[in-house]
């Protein structure tokens, strides 16, 4: 049996989606989602912060996560795929980006919360919620676990209650 990481429902081997909550149980490329943009005006999360970031931080970057509460750019590794979460003593698999310095525990971020995937040839960025305890959302819309969800410039990505602004310097004026 396979256990759904979102709702703990048991499914048979060979099942792709949890029958109880609909979460994807296996990772698979789904070309359906690539063109979709989450409505950015949702639930009043739209705000213009482009001027508050020092220009030099934007240089040579394809992708920036900006922590809204502390007005800080989160340090992310220069690689095409990385995980976000928080590091705890004795943890076997640690996330590439540790959000502990930002009081991530209080914000309900899981130890391995999400993966960010930057596909170079298409220059598209996706987030995959790794079946986190408190879930993730884009622009206030809950996203399903274990599925690639596209991120666009200006989107607000929330892990638990930890909100970050997605900035693609190329698309800034």
């Amino acid at each position, binding site marked *: *049996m396979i256990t759904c990481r979102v709702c703990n429902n048991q499914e048979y081997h060979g099942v792709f*989606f949890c029958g109880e909550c609909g979460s994807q149980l296996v990772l698979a*490329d789904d070309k359906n989602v690539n063109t979709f943009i989450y409505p950015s005006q949702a639930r009043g999360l739209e705000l213009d912060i482009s001027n508050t970031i020092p220009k030099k931080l934007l240089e040579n970057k394809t992708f920036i996560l900006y922590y809204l509460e502390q007005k800080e750019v989160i340090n992310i590794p220069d690689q095409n795929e990385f995980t976000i979460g928080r590091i705890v003593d004795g943890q076997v698999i640690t996330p590439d980006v540790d959000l502990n310095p930002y009081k991530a525990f209080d914000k309900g971020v899981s130890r391995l919360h999400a993966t960010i995937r930057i596909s170079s040839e298409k220059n598209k960025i996706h987030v995959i919620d790794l079946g986190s305890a408190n879930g993730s959302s884009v622009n206030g819309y809950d996203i399903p676990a274990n*599925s690639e969800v596209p991120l666009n410039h200006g989107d607000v990505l929330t892990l638990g209650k930890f909100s970050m602004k997605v900035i693609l310097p190329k698309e800034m004026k």
Partner: protein
Amino acid sequence: MTNKTDFYNRLNINTGASEQAIKKAYRLAVKKSHPDVNKNDGATQLFLDIQEAYKILSDPSKKGAYDEGREPLGTQSAVHIATEYSKDALTKLDEPQIIYALVDIVSTQTEKDTTDLPLNISFVLDNSTSMDGARLEVLKGATKEIIQELNDDDIISVISFNDRAKVLLSSQSQPPMAHVESNINSLFAEGGTEIYQGLEAAFEEIKKNSAFNYVNHIILITDGHTYGDEENCITLARSAAKLDIGISGLGIGIEWNDEFIDELCANTGGQCMFIQELDQVKNFLKQSITSLQEAYSRHILLEIIPAPGVKMLSAFRILPEALPLPTQEEFSLGILKKDKPHRILFEFLVNPIPEEIDQVVIASGAFFLKRKSRDFTIPFTLNRPIIAESEEFPPPPEEIFRAISHLTFYRLQEKAQKDVASGNPGTAFQRLINLSSHLMAKGEESLAKIAMNEADYIKSHNNFSPTGKKQLKYGTIRLMLPEKT
């Protein structure tokens, strides 16, 4: 292409060859195979075979009869089956596992005779009190228009029903339009809704002219619940399916009983549609007729028998129209269109596999296709090799993954309905919130919003809204179609 029993193959020509070409091919074949020239064993038989073939193919009337009865399957298959699975192999496991199979059947048009099949069609119009006003007027107008557009060799009948049925137009081809119009115009709304009355009258009319070279079909349009005669209707639908008569349904508004009409139509492989706007009535009729006119086979049946140790959990037709199929071993699929496949997604539960086996038969089945005077049986087998558990699978094929993903949406709304029915609106609420976020992630924004609104509605009313329930059901069914139209 070396089927020696086929006359065309004996002369080494195509089925479409002209009289001239046949003569030429015959001379050539005779020269090569004449026992005086050809000293090989069996040359005499070959020579005689060619004589026999030419005797038939050179005579137009005998050739016609031969073409009609010629087996289109085998070397020159007119129908093609393709299968795809959710994984390349089954895993050696000591617990049950799921595998999905996508089965396509399509007519490939290698057959020479592709003439259209005329329709034998009956319109069954609800004129109960609830249809009064715009609904009935729009329906009357649309029906008249559609009848005018039908072909000369189509056979038409029109029935109206409330708690009694009335034959407005008895089964005939080329009915005088003035007669059709005055009879339909005379229709007014009164009485209750007894669908069986209408169906039975239509069934009788269709049977009068039902023949193997027609596509027989009943189109039912209603806006209400039928009272107490559901069982009779379903029985009638089953008898209709046995006589190759299909039923499709259109529900207007929100009052009608979707579960019932769905089941009614599904028994004949027909489709049920739901509209909220009256101006869609004509479109629905038009689409139904166009679709029937594309028929290659007037009726196609599917039999599927899971192998021992395998259970079929569900079957869902994806093409030509999305339709949940009853989980049974034999069902009607309605017509098979020219060049357009029937695509069915099966879900199987496979019990643990004994050690020594390296190939498992999941199910065997057959399509039974009826075209003109002939019936064809096209058998198929679903099987997969077995591999050790440790081996990694490549990601599932895109088409089947997409189908399963959309099936999950349909199942979620279905489960939410069950939650409400069993007194758990809280669970239904959470399920619809989940459904909404999955739909959103797939880019189905409007359906996602409907799911969200419905969740809110359930929170305050502990039940579905009548509109939202149908919108979600038919919306998620429509998602199953590979290309939204």
